[in-house]
Each structure stands twice: as C-alpha cells, then as structure tokens.
C-alpha cells in the first residue's frame, strides 16, 4: 500500500448528505474481478449522462475540480454496502482524503485499507472547509497526517483525530495481514482453547 504522509491539493465540495455507495460506484461496475480501473466510474450516475457525456454541473466535471485530491462531503458519507469498490474508485480517481462530519462504519474502515484518509470533524469545521473548497482550484488545502492538521488556503489550521494504529499503518503503508500474521501464536492459542470450550464451532 502507498504511504500517506502529507497531501497538498484541491478539495472538491460535495455538501449532499447521505452519499451512499451506490452513488459512489453503481453496481453495474462491480462485476470486475480486479481492484483497479474503477476511477473512471466514480460517481458514475451523477457524473455522466446515459450516453456517456458529462453532466456539466457535477462538481468533479468542473474544470477547477477535475483533479481534486480531497473531498469535503455532507454527513454520513459512504453509507450503504460494504463494497470496497467505493474506496477503490475514489483512490483510483486520485482522491486520497475525504472529510465529513460522519462516515458509515464499513466504508470508513475500507478507506484505511486503500491509502485513503477519512477525517471526521465537527459541523462548524466541515462548514469552514466546505467554504474553502468552494473557492476552487487556487484554494489548495494541506492535510498533514503526522501532525494531524489540516491547513486551509487562508492558513487556518484545524486539528483532527485519528486512531493511532490506523495512522501508523497509513504512514508506513503497512499491510494488515502481515501485521496480524506476526501474532499467529496468539491465534493458535485462542483456537486451542476454543476447541475445548466451544467444540461445536
């Protein structure tokens, strides 16, 4: 996994609440057995007409946001299905950080496994960042994971929280499975005990 340390880039505003995984990547695009190439279908039904032409007023089709690196979104982003295709599409499009007041649980976890940093902030701070994002491409935001700080284009600094373990994995680009494998002895011990106490499992 790619490491995430510091990101400076354009933030796209998507104030809509409850943006669900069917919006992020409609199921017609879930039939691939690969992990890559979903970026072109990110927000497909909001971004394109049926004939494949772009819907001009969709935020990521506007010239200033076409190369957005950050998304500032409304409440409860990523609700719905467990499809990891949603963060795959976001990452493949080039977005590495999503900021909202809240995220759906599974989506939130899936982000970290794919080098995306989801940041939860209180409403006022999301409003401030949304306003900053609305300024367009010159308003570059900085997200510093090490310092746990976002700096707006005006130089305002906003602190954010992140789980220490997840931060460590993102910073180092670590593969969870490898880390867990290092604890194989604990799993072995657990299995032996469980075979005694719950043999029917």
């Amino acid at each position, binding site marked *: 996994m790619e490491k995430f340390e510091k990101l400076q880039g354009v933030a796209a505003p998507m*104030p*809509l*609440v*409850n943006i*669900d995984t*069917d*919006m992020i990547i*409609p*199921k*017609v695009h*879930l*039939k*691939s*057995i*690969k*992990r890559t190439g979903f970026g072109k279908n990110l927000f497909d*039904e909001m971004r394109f007409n*049926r004939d494949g032409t772009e819907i001009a007023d969709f935020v990521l089709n506007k010239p200033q946001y076409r190369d957005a690196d950050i998304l500032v979104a*409304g*409440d*409860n982003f990523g*609700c*719905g*299905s*467990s*499809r*990891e295709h949603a*963060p795959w599409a976001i990452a493949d499009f080039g977005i590495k950080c999503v900021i909202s007041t*809240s*995220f*759906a*649980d*599974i989506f939130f*976890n*899936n982000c970290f*496994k*794919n080098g995306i940093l989801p940041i939860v902030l209180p409403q006022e701070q999301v409003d401030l960042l949304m306003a900053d994002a609305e300024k367009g491409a010159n308003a570059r935001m900085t997200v510093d994971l090490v310092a746990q700080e976002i700096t707006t284009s005006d130089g305002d600094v906003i602190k954010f929280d992140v*789980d*220490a*373990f997840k931060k460590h994995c993102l910073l180092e680009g670590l593969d*969870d*499975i490898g880390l*867990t*494998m290092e*604890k*194989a002895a*604990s*799993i072995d*011990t*657990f*299995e032996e005990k*469980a075979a005694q*106490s*719950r*043999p*029917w*499992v």
Partner: protein
Amino acid sequence: MSPKTLYDKIWDAHVAHEAEDGTTLLYIDRHLVHEVTSAQAFEGLRMTGRTVRAPDKTIAVPDHNVPTTPDRVNGIENEEGRIQVAALDTNAKEFGIHYYPMNDIRQGIVHIVGPEQGWTLPGMTVVCGDSHTATHGAFGALAHGIGTSEVEHVLATQTLIQKKSKNMKVEITGKLQPGVTAKDITLAVIGETGTAGGTGYVIEYCGEAIRDLSMEGRMTVCNMAIEGGARAGLIAPDETTFKYVNGRAHAPKGAQWEAAMDWWKTLFTDEGAEFDLVVTLKGEDIQPVVTWGTSPEDVLPITAKVPFPEDFTGGKVDAVKRALDYMGLESGTNLTDIEIDTVFIGSCTNGRIEDLRAVADVVKGKKIKDGMRAMIVPGSGLVRAQAEEEGLGDIFVEAGFEWRLAGCSMCLAMNPDQLSEHERCASTSNRNFEGRQGYKGRTHLVSPAMAAAAALTGKLTDVRELV
C-alpha cells in the same frame, strides 16, 4: 463480576489478541463468502502465497449475480457475471471451502443459506463481505459486514482487526397491531434514529414485540441494523432460536448440542448492564410504513402524505428536494395515491418462508392489477421447495406473479432483474438508494404483506384495508 451486555459477552469470548490501545484481533467462527466481493481477496492470497487458515469455517455461495429464471441451468448469459461466478467456483475448489454452487438446491442468498444450513449459531462471530451480514445477529451472533481487504484478512488469519463498539439498546415494548410486521419495526426504528443514528454502536433489540417474533422476523429486524448505521444488530437467543437451530445440517448434535445449549443459555444482557444509548418504541404505535425518498430513513406510516422539504432542517432539506425530484413525487400527495408499476418480493430482508406465507395470505384467490409486473424471488432453493410444498407457488402463479429461482435479483439488480427509468417499485428489499434497483428506478420499501397489497391494487396500499 460487573454485569455485561450480550455484545460484551460475545466479544469477550472471541478476543484472540488485544493491544494496549484496544485494537483487537477478534476470532471469526464463520466466514460467509459470495462472488461479488471475494475474487480480489482470493487473488490477494494467491499473489502473496497465503492460504485459507480455516477452510472448514468458510462457506461460499453465489447469489448477487445469478439469474433467477429457469434457464439458468444453461449458465449465465452476462459475461462479466459469468466470470465472477466461475471465479468463485474455482476459488472454492482450490482453497477447499464449503460451497453451494448455483444449481444446488441449497443455493440462495448468503444470509439466508447460513442460518438455514445451521452454519449460523448463537454466540458466534460471523462475517461476510456484505453489509447485510447483520442478519445473523438474530441468533445472538455478532455479525459484521466487511470489505474485500478484510475478507482477505479473515481468509488468511481467521481474525478481524476491530475496536469495540458502544452498546445501544433498542426496545420495542408491548404487542404489534394486526398488519404490522418485523419489516415495519425495523423501518420505524431507522425512521426514529436516522441512517447514521447507529454509527459506532452495536444494537441489541429487545422487548416483548421482539421476543414475540419468529426467527424469520428477527432476521428481518437485524438485517436492516446496518441501514441504521450500526456495526451489528443482536437479539438474545431463546427457545425460539434453539428450536429453529435444532436439527439443522451443521448445528451441533448429541452431547455437543447439550454443551452448546449450556453456553447459549448464558447469552443475555445481565441485569444492571449499562447501555450507552437506549431507544424505546411502543409496539402499539408502529404502523405499516413505506419509504417515500432515497434513504431508508425517509419512512412514514402508509396513512401519511409525502412531506415538504421545509419539514426538515440542515443538509437534509436539499437531500429531500433531490429525493422528491428523483422519486417524481409532489409534497402533500397521499402515500396511498402513489401508483406502482412493479412489485418485488424477495431479498435477504424478506425472502424467507414466512414472508412468502404473508404474501400468499393477501393474494390467495385474487389477481394482481392488470399490467403490473410482479416478481417473487425466494431467498434460497429450499425456501422455494418449501413454498411449493405448501402450495404457495401455485397461489402466486394463479395471482399473476412471476415465481422465480433463488438469488438477490432486483434487490440490487446486478442480474437481469432491473427497473427501467422512472419505473416505480414497491419492494421488500432494504435499500431505496438512487439507482439501486436500476438506473433512475424508484423504490418504495415495504413489508411483504404491503407489497402484496400494492400488487393487487396497483398503488401503495394499507394492507389493513384488504384483510
């Protein structure tokens, strides 16, 4: 010892490793697998030279993509769908996991097959690369939906990296009124808490109205815990649970059954255990409900009217405007005046035998509205067989329904069963998101009885007026 919740007890019984910051390796007893979210995980194992740690605890079945028409014995026409199912066939064989192929009578929606085959048992941890894994919580099992990276993690290590959630209690007191079902309970709860209300929590559903439900009904309630944002939903196991489990193919037998029962009977929330949040609804107050918008929280009693955006606050105002526009609805319209083109009965929410019986009760000896497209898709081959045996299949066909083979079908429309643009559907599934049942399709979530009523009248209908 301090009193514990049901969630605390199951959690504590599955901690394989806990780091200082609370990051836990939770041991997984059952891993259910389907074709859409697993191919990349198996591929990951191959690329890293890893194997499936506990193939015996891993069960796979294709469901999302499979056609539900009888011609499926000849294979899947859609190429990408066919490749996905073929990949699951190969992966199941290569890694030696339990498998129910498409044309096995035991095939069906993964969340229906697990309980039906006795894979899902009280006190277990269950995961699946599918958000509706919450369904299995009906057995008092801690059941999480996970992403594909986590599927790979569980395949390789039989554990999941988790931090403990908070405890939430949802109590439904008293009795339900006639015509009100488990689906109405679960939608009413989401209407109350919102789709993000459960975020960060595991919900335990309790109260007399929950106790009175059959296992089928309890599965319907837990199924939609995820729509309320919760990580999982739970119901403490009781005699209803034990009776359902006993004798199933993979349930324990003999002395093992006795040993299991000894433990299962301890699986309840202790007197005095603390919940971080409590929501209480009176069973008597719950009405048959429908959704009018594009989020499961957009729910109202069938007797209500389509709301106005101004009835809401904050970001929801714009979301409601967008939803009404998408749904093609005018504020102030009676919900019962909304005309329906299509009825879909099925899914892991409402594709079990009891759901089909509820439909048969409403439509027996009647005909669906002329021109109505109405489809009944059983949750598994065995549910279909049982419905046939009880004569329900004939009732459906005589009433004018298409009586299909098992699969997810129009719940997410990955197979050919889809809505066309602006087609309006009364659906027993769980998501009314934009495009969920087909591009620009319009979904109203309802109970099976309410879907059956809509099929007869051609409109959203209060089933209490028909029976």
